[in-house]
Every structure is written in C-alpha cells, then in structure tokens.
C-alpha cells in the first residue's frame, strides 16, 4: 500500500515536471524543471532499491549535466525569441499523432508481454552482498571492457567539446 502511494505520487511528479520541461516558454525555467524531474526520478530509483544509481543520478544529471545546460542557456544571448520563425512545411499535429502512436505501441507491448511472461528465477548469486558492492563487482569483472570503453568515450567527448567550443584553433 505504501509502495503504491509512493509510486503514484512520484509518477505524477515525474510526468508533470516532464510536461512542464517541454511546454515552458522560458528556457531557464525549463532547465530548472528538468532538475526537479531528475530528482524525482532519483527518488524512484530509491523506491526500486537502487540507491547507488539514485546518487549517481543526482550527482551526474542534476549536478553536472544540468549545470552544463544552464551555462549554455546563459551564454547564448538571444536578441529575438528562439521560436519566432516557423517553417511553413512543419506539421505540429503530425508530431503529436506519431508520439501517441509510439505510446500506444509501447503500452501494448508492456501489457501483452507481462500477461504471459513467466517470472525468471533469481540470477546467479554474486560473491558480494549489498547494492553498491554488486554494481561495482559487475562493473569491474564481467563488464570491465565496456567500462573502459565508456571512459574512452568520455575522454573523446571532453576533447570534442573543448575543440568545438573554442573560438579558433
């Protein structure tokens, strides 16, 4: 019962703030709603017994990525509103229709697949207990090479961002 109340409250906040993110005119307000949305998703991770991911979500998304967005919003000093000009070939209602089709499709998959699926047995036990220990164990043993590739990707992205944002090389 308590889990249901927590889930529906968090779901309402997550979806409400997500709508505000894409519906607000002011870009700075949009970024701030994005922070709130990420914080509520982190609370949902706590509900799903993934506290390590919740902390990572707060640190990386709400703390790092959003600050990056705020910097860019502050750096671009717009003299006219960014949505002033509209391409006459743009079909906004078609976007809504396609999105509704995607939602219907995903919801149908979720409902039909869960109706007949047998619950899988518990996975092979790891030699460590605790959420953070398990994630760390998997990350440094079975998924070591993807982990190293991710670090390489972040290095490449860092160099790329510096090169792109520099005025002249």
């Amino acid at each position: 019962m308590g889990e249901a109340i927590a889930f529906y409250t968090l779901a309402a906040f997550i979806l409400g703030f997500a709508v505000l993110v894409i519906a607000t005119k002011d870009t700075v307000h949009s970024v701030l709603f994005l922070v709130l949305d990420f914080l509520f998703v982190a609370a949902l991770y706590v509900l799903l017994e993934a506290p390590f991911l919740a902390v990572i979500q707060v640190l990386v998304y709400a703390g790092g990525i959003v600050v990056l967005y705020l910097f860019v919003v502050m750096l671009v000093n717009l003299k006219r509103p960014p949505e002033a000009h509209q391409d006459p070939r743009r079909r906004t209602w078609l976007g809504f229709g396609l999105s509704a089709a995607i939602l219907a499709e995903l919801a149908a998959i979720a409902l039909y697949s869960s109706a007949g699926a047998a619950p899988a047995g518990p996975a092979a036990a790891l030699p460590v207990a605790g959420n953070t220990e398990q994630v760390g164990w998997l990350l440094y043993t079975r998924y070591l090479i993807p982990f190293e590739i991710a670090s390489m990707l972040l290095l490449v992205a860092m160099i790329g961002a510096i090169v792109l944002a520099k005025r002249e090389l």
Partner: protein
Amino acid sequence: MITSTHYMLLSAALFMIGVIGVMVRRNIIIIFMAIELILNAVNINLIAFSHALQNAVGQVFAIFVIAVAAAEAAVGLGIILAFYRNKETLNIDEMNLMKW
C-alpha cells in the same frame, strides 16, 4: 501491488513526452532536454527490470546509459555554441545548412 508493468507504463509515458518535445518544439536546447527525458525513461525501465529480476546487471547498463548521456550533452552543447556563434539562432527551422 506495483508490478514491473506499472514501471514500464510510466517509462513509456515519459518516453512519449520526450518524443513530443523532440518533434514539436523548435528551440534546440529544449530538444536536447527532451532527449535527456527519453534517456531517463530508458533508465527507469532498466532499473525496474533489475529490481523485478533481482539482478544488478540492469543497474550496470543504466550507468553506461548515464555515461553516454553525459558525453552526448557535452558534445551537443558544444555544437550548439559553435553554431550560435556563426548563425545567431537556436531555431532548428533555420538550421538547414546541410539540408539542401
């Protein structure tokens, strides 16, 4: 009783809001934020299944998704800054240099 179907439906709804943002808005910064919402929907799905199957692998993949999202945000915002310096606009309807 909250099952993984509930989490999948929440994730599908968040994904749809992100897709609407990408398709309807014309401010490219808002479009990038909608992409972050989509990636968050994917993470909710991964962690819901990690919880349902009692298997931490889903959380490891969520960490990889977060790493890729961080890289995407850094490079994408760098591209936005470089473009803004040349064209003084953030409207994607005016970004058609390589279209025709």
